């Protein structure tokens, strides 16, 4: 008794509206999660307990220097490009232009993969270890969580492109519209992380 079961009873717009609300509500939970992370970052930064937000140099190791937030902004920019590509696809779908829908979905999917790889590189090449103070802990928290978000985005955008390719969006576009909501949140959450990391 899923959506499809009821398809013969219900208008696709009604089903789409219901699904849209469901996704928005799930995103409410994700927003709470992301805002809590921002709270954690600025709380620990503000407290600077034992001067260990960015530990000073010791005999064993040098001082911990914050990383440039450049890579975080780059990942955000790529995600924003992915969102634009998805909006381009959605526009094509609304204008009954299947080629534009497929192309935009494909570009959005590729953008999500590129952003995922870049995010992985940022994590893998960070010049410190997990135990190097509170800033480093927060850095890893933000980057790992953004990586998880991007991995989900790859999964969703892959499905979206595949379904566009198979012509499953010819009759209605509510799923593409819901993927748009996810893309917007993906960009905003990535932006929140980049913004936070810009204040080491």
């Amino acid at each position, binding site marked *: 008794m*899923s959506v499809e079961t009821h398809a013969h009873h219900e208008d696709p717009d009604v089903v789409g509206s219901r699904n849209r609300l*469901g996704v928005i509500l*799930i995103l409410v*939970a994700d927003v709470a999660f992301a805002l809590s992370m921002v709270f954690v970052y600025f709380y620990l930064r503000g407290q600077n307990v034992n*001067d260990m937000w960015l530990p000073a140099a010791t005999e064993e190791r040098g001082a911990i220097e914050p990383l440039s937030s450049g890579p975080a902004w780059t990942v955000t920019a790529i995600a924003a490009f992915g969102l634009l590509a998805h909006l381009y696809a959605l526009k094509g779908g609304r204008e009954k232009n299947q080629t534009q829908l497929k192309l935009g979905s494909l570009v959005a999917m590729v953008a999500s993969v590129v952003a995922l790889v870049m995010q992985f590189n940022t994590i893998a090449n960070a010049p410190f270890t997990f135990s190097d103070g509170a800033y*480093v802990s927060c850095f890893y928290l933000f980057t790992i969580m953004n990586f998880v978000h991007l991995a989900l985005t790859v999964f969703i955008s892959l499905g979206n492109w595949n379904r566009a390719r198979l012509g499953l969006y010819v009759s209605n576009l509510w799923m593409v519209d819901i993927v748009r909501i996810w893309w917007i949140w993906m960009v905003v959450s990535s932006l929140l992380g980049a913004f936070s990391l810009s204040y080491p």
Partner: protein
Amino acid sequence: MTTLMSKPVSAPGKSVIERLNIVTAVVLGAVSAFVVWRLALQFLPADTEVRLFTREDKITLLSMVAWFIGFMTGIGALVGPFRWVMGKDLSHDENMFLAGKDMGVNRYFRYTTDHKVVGIQYLVITMVIFGIGGILAMLIRTNLGTPEGGWIHPQAYNSIVGTHGIIMIVGTIIMVTGPFGNFIMPIMIGARDMAFPRLNALSFWLIVAAAIPLIWAQFIGGISTGWSAYNPLAGQAPLGMNGYIMFICIFAISTMVAGANITTTIVRMRANGMTWNRTPIFIYGTMASVALALPAFPVFFLSQVMSAMDRALDTSFYNTAGGGSGWLYENLFWIMGHPEVYVILIPAVAALMEMAPVFTRRPLFSFNVAVMGIAGISGLSVLVWAHHMYISGWAPLLNAPFMLTTELISIPTGMLFLVLVGTLWRGRLWMTMPTMSIFALLWNFMIGGITGIYLSDVPADAFLHGSMYVTAHFHYTLMGAGLTGALAALVYWFPKMTGRMFDKKLSWISFWLVQIGFNVAFIGMFTVGLAGQPRRVESYASTFNTGNLITTIGAYTIMVGMLVLLHGVISSWRSGDKAPMNPWQAKTLEWTVPNPIPLENFDVLPTVTSDAYGYGKAKS
């Protein structure tokens, strides 16, 4: 059997969906956990610095994550998402198969999407949770029966207290919105199912998946921190703490999914004509509960993610030596922890408000005040968390504002009392167990509420904090009010859920045993708390002996009452009197569908023309 057997459906032959069930889930979960455990043992490098448990924590957490992924794959939770990606949506027949059509008892052991099946699954798992939590409670009370304790090893005692706490919290969170929110709510609003049936199944099976790490934890050091798992204590606790972390993370996902699903169902799928003014008050209570949980549990989830990172990766979120803060954990925990009290209470009280008009044959007294009360409690509950931290030393300047917000909650809570008392006032009472439960709730919740005012008061809390008084207080709210409402809901909706009437005599015996035992147990606990006995102790000074002995006797009385109730559930379900369609002559929609309920509830979706509380009116 809750759904109607009708013509057979051509189930997909030997498809993946057909093969998956709880057996494949457990096997795949166990194999995944074992394989990852062996690989981690083999390949994870030894710790480079002296740090207790870090490598072992990694191995334990990885194995638990593998269990989780394996179990959810094995039960079929990933079939839908992967089919979506592949562009091969589930067919009508496959959806009917997932809905459990014509599958008999087997549907309860599969990823079944029918909301009635999920409701029964929730009911059973809630009873199992209360059974385990209750046994742990009896172990605690038996050990505290004498001052010197000693019956249980102190470390085991700590773990029993922690496990009892968290398992009962989870049990009480799901005890109303799980069984009745899933089974009854969609029918009550005139819908054919939940908005997202597969997410509905997901929310249930996530809880089953979460249970194993908690059980696992008992064999690798237990949960020695109490249910709140404060850091840095949790960071230094044995490996069992990882089980707690996994349990909470998975449960939080379940809560988020259920919250989105239930809220969407209520907002988007109410019957034609069911305006907000005609929506039953139980629906408001259910929606307030899950909507509160929606933003609250992700915060708890994050707190546990960071706890896991501190343990397994040696980060410094809560470790002050590395720049972290224990207060950070306390804030995150209680930002979830206090709304969670109302996540538990509101639907239970709303269920009793739903029953009050039925058993007094009067309209609900001031429906609008009831809605405002629920909204007021929900709104204020997110602004009170730091009253749990007065004595911790965090932000003393904020004590006064938090005292104010906490005490303000008395006002909307009083509104709910007003609605219940107003409905009972001069009503012609039909004396059933649910009716008596309304009186019991008023009594217990009054004590729980008034004792809570003292705890919200900073000077009084300085004396009472950390004592058995606190333990008695929250049992009066969560158990005295919350569980009382849930048990009444069970008896009230039992005929619709099972097609059988609940044994009246057993319901009465159970009610009195539980209520008398409860008040004896926890008034005894108040006395020792006021006298200064700290909570969570394994032994105590002999001066507290009498109060503790009384509490233990009360606890055993509760146990007998709960066993009578369990007997009532089993015997009534198996061989109780067959229930008529509407045994209480109630006016909400769930009583308009026949027993057993058809798979899609309604042949024709109903149209609502009035509210559900038109008792005593000429035309209603």
